[in-house]
């Protein structure tokens, strides 16, 4: 069957930021498939110039409302690497715990509030409050736990207050920290219920061979710092991130695009799971297998499942970190900072993929130049190539307008794009 199709989604909903989808099929032949990013740029890299080092994490955290903790931590790591500061073990544990809870919060927000309505045939989570109250309550409970623990460790769930270069302004309350242990155990149970719900969802059957980029795990599933790896076999040190991202400009997007060994690559939960599967906690690996998710998986819709798998991983790992923190006496919260001239890079796996902050400082610690490479900007080219392939496959299958539109929207949503972040 030959189809005609003309789809124009202006400002895709249930994603962060502003992007448009355009698909045109004439007589069964794909004429156009376009992922357009129209978000206004905010110029963070320019506004930081001339500011002192302590401004960087505070301002750069504001690049993103969803992953402000990740941006803050990447920025801090960039500054610390430039000044030769090695955080204490306690700080490293607290940062990872905070990072884990941001991952849980963000993944649950995406899976339940943004993605799930597609699978349940609703326009938003709002009708589900009445039709599936148990699902909404489960999601709110998981997200609430993650946010509460972010408050306790970072001082605030969004744009954290305690995270600074050198460590933390103050430490969490030990008693309240201990109170999170049973809640985390309960969350792990809740995630199994979530998995049961997601098993009832029909994930679109679409595969396109893709290069996946992430941090390279050394002994543990990586989130903060380390070497960079691609599924096509490229490995580089953190400082060489620009050789991994190769940013360039295109007319269809106010965000920059990236490429590595091919025309595009993907970052995010699926990339991390693909590249570091063996380092996931056993229960998370088991959950992945239950969904048929095994490396290297080339179906972008399975990023949803990879996020679910990571939720279980970070919840389990948060319990480990909590036990380690509570099992040792508090050390001083922060190290003294002595600025010096030089460059520093911080690579952090945030919910949507690997994030880089690079800074150059003068001798008193003022920012000479700043560069932030955002996960979603690294994904834009891959979304475009996926969209083209999906539209071509849909045209061949003779699908109707509404079905193609639904699949296209779900495809972009599966990447959980953070568009305003990508343009920053």
């Amino acid at each position, binding site marked *: 069957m030959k189809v005609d199709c003309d789809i124009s989604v202006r400002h895709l909903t249930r994603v962060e930021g502003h992007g448009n989808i355009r698909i045109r099929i004439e007589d069964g032949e794909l004429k156009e498939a376009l992922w357009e990013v129209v978000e206004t740029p*905010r*110029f963070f890299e320019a506004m930081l110039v001339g500011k002192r080092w302590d401004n960087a994490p505070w301002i750069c955290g504001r690049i993103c409302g969803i992953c402000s903790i990740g941006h803050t931590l990447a920025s801090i790591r960039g500054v610390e690497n430039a000044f030769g500061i090695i955080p204490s073990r306690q700080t490293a544990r607290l940062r990872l715990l905070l990072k884990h809870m941001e991952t849980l919060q963000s993944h649950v927000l995406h899976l339940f509030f943004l993605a799930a309505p597609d699978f349940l045939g609703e*326009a*938003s989570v709002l009708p589900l409050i009445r039709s599936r109250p148990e699902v909404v309550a489960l999601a709110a409970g998981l997200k609430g736990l993650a946010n509460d623990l972010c408050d306790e460790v970072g*001082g*605030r769930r969004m744009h954290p207050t305690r995270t600074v270069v050198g460590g933390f302004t103050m430490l969490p309350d030990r008693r309240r920290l201990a109170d999170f242990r049973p809640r985390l155990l309960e969350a792990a149970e809740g995630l199994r219920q979530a998995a049961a719900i997601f098993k009832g969802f029909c994930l679109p059957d679409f595969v396109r061979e893709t290069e996946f980029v992430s941090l390279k795990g050394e002994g543990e599933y990586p989130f903060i710092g380390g070497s960079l790896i691609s599924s096509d076999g490229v490995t580089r040190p953190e400082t060489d991130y620009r050789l991994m991202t190769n940013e360039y400009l295109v007319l269809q997007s106010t965000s920059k695009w990236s490429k590595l060994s091919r025309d595009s690559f993907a970052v995010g939960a699926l990339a991390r799971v693909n590249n570091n599967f063996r380092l996931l906690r056993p229960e998370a690996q088991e959950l992945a297998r239950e969904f048929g998710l095994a490396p290297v998986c080339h179906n972008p819709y399975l990023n949803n499942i990879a996020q679910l798998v990571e939720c279980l991983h970070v919840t389990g790992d948060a319990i480990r970190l909590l036990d380690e923190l509570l099992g040792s006496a508090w050390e001083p919260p922060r190290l003294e900072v002595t600025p010096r001239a030089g460059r520093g890079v911080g690579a952090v796996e945030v919910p949507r993929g690997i994030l880089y902050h690079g800074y150059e400082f003068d001798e008193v610690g003022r920012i000479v130049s700043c560069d932030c490479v955002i996960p979603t900007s690294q994904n834009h080219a891959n979304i475009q190539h996926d969209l083209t392939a999906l539209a071509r496959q849909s045209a061949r299958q003779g699908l109707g307008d509404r079905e193609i539109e639904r699949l296209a929207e779900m495809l972009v949503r599966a990447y959980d794009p953070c568009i305003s972040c990508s343009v920053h």
Partner: protein
Amino acid sequence: MPDSSLTPKNYLGVPVERPKVAFFELSSCEGCQLQILNNESSLLAFLDLIEIVRFREAMSGGGDDYEIALVEGSVTRPDEVERLKLIRAQARLLVALGSCACFGGVNQLKNRFPLDWVKREVYGEHPIETAPARPLADFVAVDLKIYGCPIKKEEVERIVTDLVIGKEIVYPDYPVCMECKANGNLCLFELGEPCLGPVTRAGCDAWCPNSRAGCWGCRGPATEANLAQMLAIMDERGFSRETVIDRLECFGGFASQVAALRAAGGHR
């Protein structure tokens, strides 16, 4: 379960209307809207109080028959001025949500530089459209401001509840310093940290100082702000003008004070 959208709400026995509310975002991190979703414990009760007809970040579709528009972000491109004017034309009440909408927020930090340099620094010679970052009130009448970066969800819920039941919206006229003292915190100055608590509008319950992080003035000046006295404290404690200006200019709420300081001291 009864369909609560059809049930009139009651407040102290008096029926109240559920207003139709829409959320919009201009140049921003969309964090202020997320703060509303972030309030898991009271979110459902809050959603019961209003009827959300448009919230692009969280829902597909949506109508244009809203009465209250909550607009996040600052204006940084001409098409945003047009969007904002359309929103103003429809909304009975336009609310500026967060520091970007109220003052330009961190976005206005780029206004320190010539626009051509800003564009070249990030995009090279690639064509890109942008304008200086401005608050909503530079283009349309703003009925109500909700301050903060990010907004404090408890405050939003209180303000929206007051709106629904027709209560007057009141802001504290004292500074963050008062809230901080009331919370029994150690003074940040005693800990060797700079803090804008003495001059910044209260209402956040000293969110940052509670975490031993000095205030950066995201809510703008308090009605009773004694800037000269704060500068004297900063001098006495040995904080440079650069440190003070970094904080005062971060969110745009102290723009006139910063301009005066720069004019007086020849700072960057």
